[in-house]
């Protein structure tokens, strides 16, 4: 079952006042997101991520193509009741307190009375601003507003949440909190579709990702299955190893860099498996410091796509 499907979704914006010309922000996006998965929508700034999310929320209308969420066409109110949305860099009515804002929005979901009060209170606590619930939003920092934004997106206990750059403006602690919140939502059966330009967020959370650049879908699937992100080798750091032991590795070593008196960074090919090399070196008296796969970063991929 798909929680979200787009077919050839395209958006052109008119640019200029006189003789307006069309600028294509999104070009034929075809995508599906399975129910219950955490799906990362990745791309550099200006790739078309926010335009896609706005199309899904009907904040802008497609030039062509179609989309469905939870099996219904966009804009269907019964679907909106089951969706939560966090806009990018959210702004809320700054004359309201966090509690008033959530109470106002909860009313739009027809939540009333004690149920509404309890849910607002629980959510404010859950996103870590329970202590500031009676503070006007104009006194909130960017990170606190982001937390309010996440809380308002969860008011209706949605089946699908759409987060536009959920980590934006958050400190490391906040990022960790949001990551664990997303995983909790997934465990509850909620589908999470979020945009980001940070690979580590996607690696930590997503079952699948789609990568967008210049308005076009460049790749989609499991991050580890994507050619650019498959490991191309291993980076092994060892200590207490002799030059002779390094030389004995022969063709199983692509490159070695001495980083201390008896400390080396070794660039190993994928084959043979690194465990064998590690075994040999530790038998020769070396200590393993670290072992990491070598893969292209999302930033490298973006640069490659944007400059191609």
């Amino acid at each position, binding site marked *: 079952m798909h929680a979200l499907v787009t077919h050839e979704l395209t958006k052109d914006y008119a640019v200029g006042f006189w003789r307006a010309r069309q600028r294509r922000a999104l070009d034929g996006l075809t995508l599906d997101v399975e129910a219950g998965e955490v799906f990362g929508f990745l791309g550099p700034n200006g790739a078309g991520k926010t335009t896609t999310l706005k199309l899904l929320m009907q*904040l802008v209308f497609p030039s062509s193509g179609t989309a469905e969420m939870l099996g219904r066409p966009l804009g269907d109110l019964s679907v909106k009741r089951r969706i939560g949305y966090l806009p990018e*860099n*959210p702004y*809320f009515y700054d004359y309201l307190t966090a509690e008033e804002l959530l109470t106002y929005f909860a009313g739009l979901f027809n939540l009333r009375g004690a149920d509404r009060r309890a849910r607002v209170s629980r959510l404010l606590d859950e996103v870590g601003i329970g202590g500031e619930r009676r503070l006007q939003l104009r006194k909130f920092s960017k990170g606190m507003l982001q937390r309010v934004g996440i809380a308002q997106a969860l008011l209706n206990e949605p089946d699908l949440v759409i987060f536009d750059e959920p980590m934006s403006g958050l400190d490391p602690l906040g990022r960790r909190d949001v990551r664990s919140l997303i995983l909790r939502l997934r465990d509850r059966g909620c589908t999470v579709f979020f945009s980001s330009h940070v690979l580590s967020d996607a690696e930590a959370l997503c079952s699948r990702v789609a990568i967008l650049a210049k308005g076009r879908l460049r790749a989609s699937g499991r991050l580890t299955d994507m050619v650019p992100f498959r490991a191309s080798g291993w980076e092994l750091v060892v200590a207490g190893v002799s030059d002779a032991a390094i030389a004995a590795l022969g063709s199983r070593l692509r490159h070695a860099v001495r980083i201390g008196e008896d400390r080396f960074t070794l660039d190993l090919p994928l084959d043979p498996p690194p465990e064998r090399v590690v075994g040999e070196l530790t038998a020769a008296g070396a200590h393993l410091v670290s072992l990491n796969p070598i893969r292209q970063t999302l930033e490298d991929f973006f640069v490659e796509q944007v400059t191609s």
Partner: protein
Amino acid sequence: MSAIAAIAVNTFRESVRDKVLYNLVLFAVLIMGASYLIGQLTAGQDVKIIKDLGLSATAVFGLFIAVFIGIGLVSKEVERRSVYALLAKPIHRYQLVLGKYCGLVLTLTVNVAVMAATFYLVLAYMAYGASPDAVRAWDAPALDPALLKAVALILVELALVTAIAVFFSTFSTPILSAALTFGLYVAGHFSSDLRNFQDVVDSPSAARLARGLYWVLPNLAQFDIKADVVHGQYVPPGYLVMTTVYAAFYIGMLLVASMLVFSRRDFK
């Protein structure tokens, strides 16, 4: 319906928190100060002048609120992007427009009601201190209930001006919306002159244009019955009803147009 009410209440709350109702203090100071000064300077005409001043101030203060808040009602939501989270909720776009409009009309109603109450209090004070000779010289009693007819039509006119401001704010910038709304307000007060434009111009096309504008523009002069009530002239209830129906027709048209524009707008 509940979504429209929730948005209206929030719009009213915004006006209160943004200290819009502080204008009431200014109004109270103006009307009380004027009553004191006029009482010192004029003989017999003081109540008439205060009635005139009170009704005019109610209309002018309300006009500024209707225009300057009305033009930002929708455009501010879009500019500040607060509309993104709001429209993600299970509401239709037209409900946002109607809710915002009703919220500002609620603000204006409270504003006009408090002004009218203040105004009557000042008149009561003047009536209390007036000599029997002065009272006999008045065209109408100080606490004339007919004043409420003028107040009611001021409120109806403000509701119409708010609809004009909301309409422009759905597709235009706040400054342009303010200019267009004020322009329409002024033109609306002189629209009856457009009807007789053909008598003063030679160009048939200019005369046709003027006549066309006469039929399109709301005739706002109809809402101004201040002079009648101040001078004790009878204003039949039927006139109030017909004028209100006339305003409701225009308000309906403007709100439908606003909703149509807003419902297809892209929020880039």
